[in-house]
């Protein structure tokens, strides 16, 4: 068996730390877990071969504490660091420091992380590389007059967005010319406040788009392969709740065409490791919105339909191995759905940390659970509310929905409130079952009586 490293430090917590640990263990690689004092009895700490406490509960002093993590890698003799998602996973400076310490960062180069972290630079790059974009300004808007001109050109409604933005902050819609000036001002003020940078740019506002993203792997030998799309349109406040592979609206030919454009672009860019290009899709048109230079929460749905272990591939690539297969070897089989179960009230979405009195995972054919829960575990209040990902796979989309429904019925997380009831409602909903939904669907669904 190939074993690119003998020891890997996992700079994360929760289900994704466990996910990386599992891949490492199956590859015969020893793991080092790092954890805050709040996570001393967490699953990723218990299962890891070694563990190092790196700080107090606040993430800033532990999971975002670069010095502590690098020290932990040094004293344990880890050869590489997997950042998971969130935390330091898209921190170019961290990636640089890891390499400066003679360790391998399991991810892209710092240069590419930085490029894709700047939303304007990312779009510039993708435009040059021939990836379709939302019509809009070619970079930051210098003035209100320029904004007005661009809006005339792409036609209202338009969206003004912070160049350094994310999470919906510094983002304003102008539905007609009369709304433009205020949208311009507010977006800039918010951008300045949130990111310390008031650069904004403009895009045509799509009123009923879907969020469709493409998973890519690139090795250090120039091979780039895509693993098809994920439809992540079911979002609430920009948080994905349910993801599917493939998208109910995409044909194999459309997937192939987009995949060819994207892999060509990343090959030219010299990108390496895992990456995801996010698109808005409306009326058959794709528009690039951003690229995530890391593993995504929803990567399992891709693994289910392609039969690939994306984390294993990330580690192999970081170790300098060639993919060893081409685009023609990637086959898509059946349909997969992921339900993100969070420790939140299923109606108010109020966080619900606390002790899990009983945890029982569903089982059987086509059911995968990625979770760091166990009976007796206390979900700490300091971190993300994601506690379990239920992933199902079946030959058809209808079969996957039926499987998700029965697995949700078997799943027990007692002692805290979770979004399990909401997921059951979604799976039962005829509109969801029809596949005809946009990124606005879930907000309306949630606001309906439970």
């Amino acid at each position, binding site marked *: 068996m190939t074993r690119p490293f003998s020891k890997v430090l996992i700079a994360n917590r929760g289900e994704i730390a466990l996910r990386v640990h599992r891949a490492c263990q199956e590859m015969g690689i020893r793991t080092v877990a790092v954890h805050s004092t709040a996570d001393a009895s967490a699953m990723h700490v218990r299962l890891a071969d070694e563990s190092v*406490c790196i700080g107090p509960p606040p993430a800033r002093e532990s999971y975002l504490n670069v010095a502590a*993590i690098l020290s932990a890698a040094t004293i*344990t003799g880890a050869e590489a660091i997997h950042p998971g998602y969130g935390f330091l996973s898209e921190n170019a400076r961290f990636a640089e420091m890891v390499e400066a310490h003679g360790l391998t960062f399991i991810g892209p180069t710092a240069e590419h992380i930085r490029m894709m972290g700047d939303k304007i630079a990312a779009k510039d790059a993708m435009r040059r590389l021939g990836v379709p974009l939302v019509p809009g300004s070619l970079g930051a808007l210098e003035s209100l007059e320029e904004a007005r001109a661009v809006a005339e050109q792409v036609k209202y409604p338009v969206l003004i967005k912070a160049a350094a933005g994310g999470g919906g902050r510094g983002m304003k819609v102008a539905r007609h010319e009369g709304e433009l000036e205020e949208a311009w001002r507010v977006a800039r003020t918010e951008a300045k406040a949130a990111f310390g940078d008031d650069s904004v740019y403009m895009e045509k506002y799509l009123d009923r788009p879907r969020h469709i993203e493409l998973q890519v792997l690139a090795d250090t030998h120039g091979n780039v392969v895509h693993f098809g799309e994920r439809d992540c349109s079911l979002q609430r406040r920009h948080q994905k709740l349910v993801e599917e592979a493939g998208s109910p609206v995409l044909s194999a030919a459309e997937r192939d065409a987009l995949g060819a454009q994207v892999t060509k672009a990343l090959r030219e860019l010299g990108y390496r490791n895992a990456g995801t290009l996010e698109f808005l899709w409306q009326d058959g048109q794709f528009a690039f919105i951003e690229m995530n230079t890391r593993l995504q929460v929803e990567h399992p749905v891709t693994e289910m339909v392609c039969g690939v272990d994306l984390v294993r591939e990330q580690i192999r690539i970081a170790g300098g191995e060639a993919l060893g297969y081409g685009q023609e070897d990637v086959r898509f089989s059946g349909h997969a759905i992921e339900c993100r179960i969070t420790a939140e009230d299923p109606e108010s979405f109020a966080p619900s940390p606390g002790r899990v009195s009983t945890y029982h995972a569903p089982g059987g054919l086509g059911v995968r659970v990625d979770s760091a829960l166990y009976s007796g575990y206390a979900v700490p209040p300091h971190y993300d509310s994601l506690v379990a990902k239920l992933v199902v796979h079946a030959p058809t989309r209808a079969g996957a929905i039926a499987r998700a429904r029965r697995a949700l019925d078997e799943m027990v997380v007692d002692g805290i409130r979770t979004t399990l009831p909401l997921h059951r409602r979604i799976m039962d909903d005829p509109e969801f079952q029809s596949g005809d939904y946009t990124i606005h669907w879930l907000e309306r669904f949630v606001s309906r009586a439970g």
Partner: protein
Amino acid sequence: MSNGVTVDADAIRKLAEILRDTDLTEIEVAEKDARIRVARVIPAPAPAQYFAAPAMAPMQAMAAAPAQAAAPAAPAAAPAPAAAPSLDASHPGLVTSPMVGVAYLSPEPGSAPYITLGAKVTAGQTLLLIEAMKTFNQIKAPKAGTVTRILIDNGTPVEYGEPLVLVE
């Protein structure tokens, strides 16, 4: 409680403690006319027993090893004896590591250590160094007192919150 039952809370709590320590499920003590019986159901396995115990990992060994002040300097990664005397982490005189790194007891290789067992220290006096990210961080005494335990060896890797020195 002239004709009732005398509840000797101390005795019961003491028995409860023995019960816990010994893994017994029932103790009955009788003396003349008095009798106390305590029992417990062994709780569903404590979290620490839930999972197949991984091989004793170096860092876990490290966490345990420093507690043996008198032990000969063992390699950092050597497995620690299972029954290292434990120190309550909330002990007021306990100095714990504020960072992950490597602890050094003397300013430079070969020089005299900052402190020795039994030494008097003043508040703010340097007790040891922790190297992290190529910088050496002075760990200072939080209060004046006597060094009653030194819980790590020179050159030991330490994790956040790990007990270093006891000043009483």
